[in-house]
């Protein structure tokens, strides 16, 4: 045995290494058997017991026996629980999620205000996306199987789907919901969709559902007779669109003088169109023009002041229009914008010749004070170089340009961006962008050339975006993907949702918000009027207000409904399918169906109609509402009190809307309405004896009424109930 001992050095080393080895092994066993989630579960257990005990005490003090038993049982059960790994297994999705191991309160309503990980999941969302059917990672991403914080949140290197931060979480809605507009909880991704469309991103980036859209920007084939100094203008705009118009919607391409010159040379070399005739403006006055400009609602969309925004950046600011275009072109444009550019969003305004000329005379006085950049001598540039640049920068994505009719921009396809792994994104030389898809996107939108390198010159231009728009766009682009989940999970858009989607685009494209209130946001033109009834009607809920057929007819051929307005619904030249899409979209937005209206409400027997007629007269509806066809605006009435003609009601309004509106006008169309609350107070107390019966009778009557109910000769009708006074709305306090 003595010979086993070795040297003292060996024995000392052994004396150190041997316990060290034992300790390391023990530590390894300890670490592997004490996972961090066990501590969290223990913490949660204490927290839960604490909370239940408090509830139990409350129940005891209130002597609520059922509650006491309930909380006692919960507490006893809790006391018995041991830490266990929780796991959701959804075979259909091939999902194994252990998130609830730590996020224990997901379905527990007692923890709504607690910090993560012990917070209740928003209940409304969870109700529609049950845990047992959806799991966690299909919406949130992350690594469902992992049981450490870093691992489960997918932050380890190379995990393809790290947990989406809540700021970008809505991107996942679009994985299943083909159309997100109108979905509660998907506002950001819907806004992103609107920005994507309204911002013209679709000009270059092809995503599903945009191939039917017209070019975003005006054609460049006919510039020479439109612009008064085409060469300088094109040169200036190509270099920096904001130099020509500070509010220009065109994004910044950051071209050099040389490049801008070449592009100008190319566009100037295109074959010339027939010259526009010059117009004689001597007979009209610009002052009249300015008045007409305001009266006819031009300012609903356009602005004539530098720095004052129009309804959308896409609508030209007219501050310098007199320097930009020729009078002859303006005249031709106003006469029929679609004749010049079939895809234009500008509608045709009904104007007489002198009116139009007056507006032209006014607009040509709006001149710029400092001159444009002088274009260099274009003859020294080869137009073919310009053509190459146009091809390179893909100007034809937004503009129609002769020679590029069949070209499609060669840009990254975003339609599968959701599935693009982050290592396929080129972060180039940047060191300050975190290596995530959303941070990459955000920087790309804020500074599209940030990922330029010596070898790769990027060409995406810089658009003006607010922070919120940037975030919404990031969310939208993160969500671009064909549905990958089983068909049972995806919510394909039906005709109604598709119509809603297209309608949202049309509303932005055609600048309906210029004159109409929408999404609770006042019409752009409303800022110029103090009197609210001078602004065209709100589009919020309009689908539920108007009968589909009526809206359809109106869109195709607008008729005057509010004769006191100076503005008129212009002619947008909708095709029948377009009108149908709009009507369907409006109906979907208002959650009603087309073409059906609730005829049961309109069907009524004679006694009820008679009752309705009497109530109609009794409540003096006609005091504000004209009830004769073609009735003039009544004189001597407060202009604010003039309201809509009720004669076309039966083909115009939906009876169920009339019923609701009579009961709760302010709740239905907002606090600004001057419609008095006749039947109920604001808190829902009936003001008359049988409000619902009266409402039904009046509704039925209005759906059958042909003309003003003639007063029974000489006789004042009996009030509907004893002691009720006749009403007079002329002294009503609003």
């Amino acid at each position, binding site marked *: 045995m003595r*010979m086993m001992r070795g040297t003292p050095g*060996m024995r000392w080393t052994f004396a150190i290494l041997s316990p060290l080895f034992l300790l*390391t092994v023990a530590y*390894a066993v300890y670490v592997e058997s004490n996972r961090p989630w066990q501590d969290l579960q223990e913490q949660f257990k204490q927290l839960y017991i604490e909370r239940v005990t408090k509830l139990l005490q409350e129940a005891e003090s209130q002597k609520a026996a059922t509650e006491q038993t309930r909380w006692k049982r919960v507490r006893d059960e809790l006391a018995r629980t041991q830490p266990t790994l929780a796991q959701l297994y959804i075979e259909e999705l091939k999902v194994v999620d252990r998130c609830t191991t730590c996020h224990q309160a997901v379905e527990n309503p007692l923890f709504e205000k607690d910090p993560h990980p012990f917070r209740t999941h928003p209940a409304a969302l969870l109700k529609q996306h049950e845990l047992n059917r959806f799991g966690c990672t299909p919406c949130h991403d992350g690594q469902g199987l992992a049981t450490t914080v870093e691992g489960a949140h997918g932050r380890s290197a*190379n995990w*393809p789907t790290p947990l989406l931060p809540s700021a970008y979480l809505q991107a996942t809605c679009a994985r299943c919901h083909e159309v997100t507009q109108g979905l509660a909880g998907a506002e950001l991704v819907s806004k992103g969709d609107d920005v994507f469309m309204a911002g013209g991103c679709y000009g270059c980036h092809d995503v599903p559902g945009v191939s039917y859209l017209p070019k975003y920007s005006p054609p460049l084939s006919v510039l020479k007779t439109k612009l008064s100094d085409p060469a300088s203008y094109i040169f200036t705009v190509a270099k920096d669109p904001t130099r020509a118009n500070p509010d220009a919607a065109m994004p910044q391409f950051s071209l050099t003088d040389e490049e801008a010159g070449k592009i100008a040379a190319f566009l100037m070399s295109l074959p010339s169109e027939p010259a526009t005739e010059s117009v004689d403006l001597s007979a009209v006055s610009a002052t009249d023009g300015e008045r007409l400009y305001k009266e006819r609602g031009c300012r609903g969309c356009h602005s004539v002041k530098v720095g004052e925004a129009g309804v959308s950046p896409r609508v030209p600011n007219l501050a310098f229009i007199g320097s930009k275009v020729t009078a002859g072109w303006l005249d031709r444009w106003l006469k029929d914008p679609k004749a010049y550019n079939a895809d234009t969003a500008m509608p045709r305004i009904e104007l007489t010749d002198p009116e139009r000329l007056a507006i032209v005379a006014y607009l040509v006085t709006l001149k710029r004070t400092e001159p444009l950049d002088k274009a260099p001598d274009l003859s020294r540039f080869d137009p073919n170089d310009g053509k190459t640049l146009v091809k390179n920068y893909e100007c034809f994505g937004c503009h129609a340009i002769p020679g590029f009719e069949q070209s499609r921009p060669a840009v990254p396809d975003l339609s599968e961006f959701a599935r693009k792994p982050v290592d396929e994104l080129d972060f180039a*030389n940047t060191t300050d962008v975190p290596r995530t898809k959303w941070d990459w996107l955000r920087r790309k939108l804020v500074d599209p050339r940030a990922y330029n*390198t010596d*070898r790769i010159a990027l060409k995406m231009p810089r658009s003006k975006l607010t922070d919120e728009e940037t975030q919404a766009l990031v969310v939208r682009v993160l969500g671009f993907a064909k549905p990958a989940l089983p068909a049972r999970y995806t919510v394909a858009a039906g005709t109604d949702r598709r119509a809603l989607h297209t309608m949202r685009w049309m509303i932005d494209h055609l600048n309906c918000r210029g004159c109409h209130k929408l999404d609770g946001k006042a019409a752009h033109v409303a800022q110029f009027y103090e009197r609210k009834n001078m602004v065209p009607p709100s589009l919020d809920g309009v689908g539920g207000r108007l009968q589909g057929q009526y809206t359809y007819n109106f869109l195709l051929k607008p008729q005057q409904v509010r004769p006191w307005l100076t503005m008129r619904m212009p002619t947008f030249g909708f095709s029948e399918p377009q009108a149908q899409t709009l009507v369907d979209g409006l109906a979907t937005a208002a959650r009603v169906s087309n073409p059906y209206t609730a005829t049961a409400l309109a069907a009524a027997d004679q006694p009820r109609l008679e009752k309705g007629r009497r109530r109609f007269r009794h409540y003096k509806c006609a005091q504000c509402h004209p009830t004769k066809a073609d009735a003039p605006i009544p004189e001597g009435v407060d202009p604010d009190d003039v309201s809509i003609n009720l004669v076309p009601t039966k083909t115009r309004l939906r009876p169920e809307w009339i019923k609701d509106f009579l009961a709760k006008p302010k709740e239905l169309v907002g606090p600004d309405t001057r419609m008095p609350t006749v039947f109920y107070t604001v808190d829902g107390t009936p003001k008359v004896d049988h409000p619902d019966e009266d409402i039904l009778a009046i509704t039925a009557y209005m759906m059958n009424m042909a003309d003003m109910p003639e007063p029974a000769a000489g006789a004042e009708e009996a009030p509907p109930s004893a002691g009720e006074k006749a009403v007079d709305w002329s002294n009503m306090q609003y």
Partner: protein
Amino acid sequence: MDPGGEERTHAAAPAAASQSAGLRSTDVEVFPYLVFKEFLAALLVSIILLVWSLAIDAPLLPEADPGKTENPAKAPWYFVGLQELLVYFDPWIAGVGIPTLIIVGLAVIPYLDTTRSATGLYTFQRRRLAISQFMAGFGLWWVLIAVGQFLRGPNWQFFWPWETWTALAPEEEALWSFPWWVGLPVVCAYFGLGLAWPRRRWRILYERLGPSRYYAVMTLMLLMYAIPIKILLRLMFHVRYVLMTPWFNI
């Protein structure tokens, strides 16, 4: 009890077994002295491995995708040294020539080192040349593996561990080669001098080995040292090839 004294006693014991093994006064038995040390080394390595496995998780590499080449694409760690050689040599030399030489070199060791005097003795003194040269080659191999495994990033670019990997295209290094009329004499001189000079300097070496073993050993050693020399030439003087011929370049 004096351990030092014990050792002496042990070594000086006139036991038959000790004498038959030809123990000298400074020698000690394999058991327990060497075995104990080996056991301690095993213990230490076990501890290091345990701590390492506790501290660092197994890396998760990108999802396998036949449509995508990973960057950097690294061989299993034991082949990374070979991969690292690809930086400095043409593929067939780095991938075929050098490994073959290594295998052949290792395989012929029993035929080259026929000394019996050190059999059963685990000591550096008796085999200074053999052990030091083997350790030099072995060390070179580990250095190459360590560089390839830990210090190479995307596009096989060099990064220190504290630098972040960026997927920049490598800057084209301006390399130059020896013209053949320089390269040929240099290579000839290297081998000529490398074979002749030790023979004069350490006559005993030549005498012990005999001409055929001497030339075989020296050729293999010179080939081995040619590898770090070439690497240093490349790193310090940006030399691409030392010798360019119509058939091969080295």
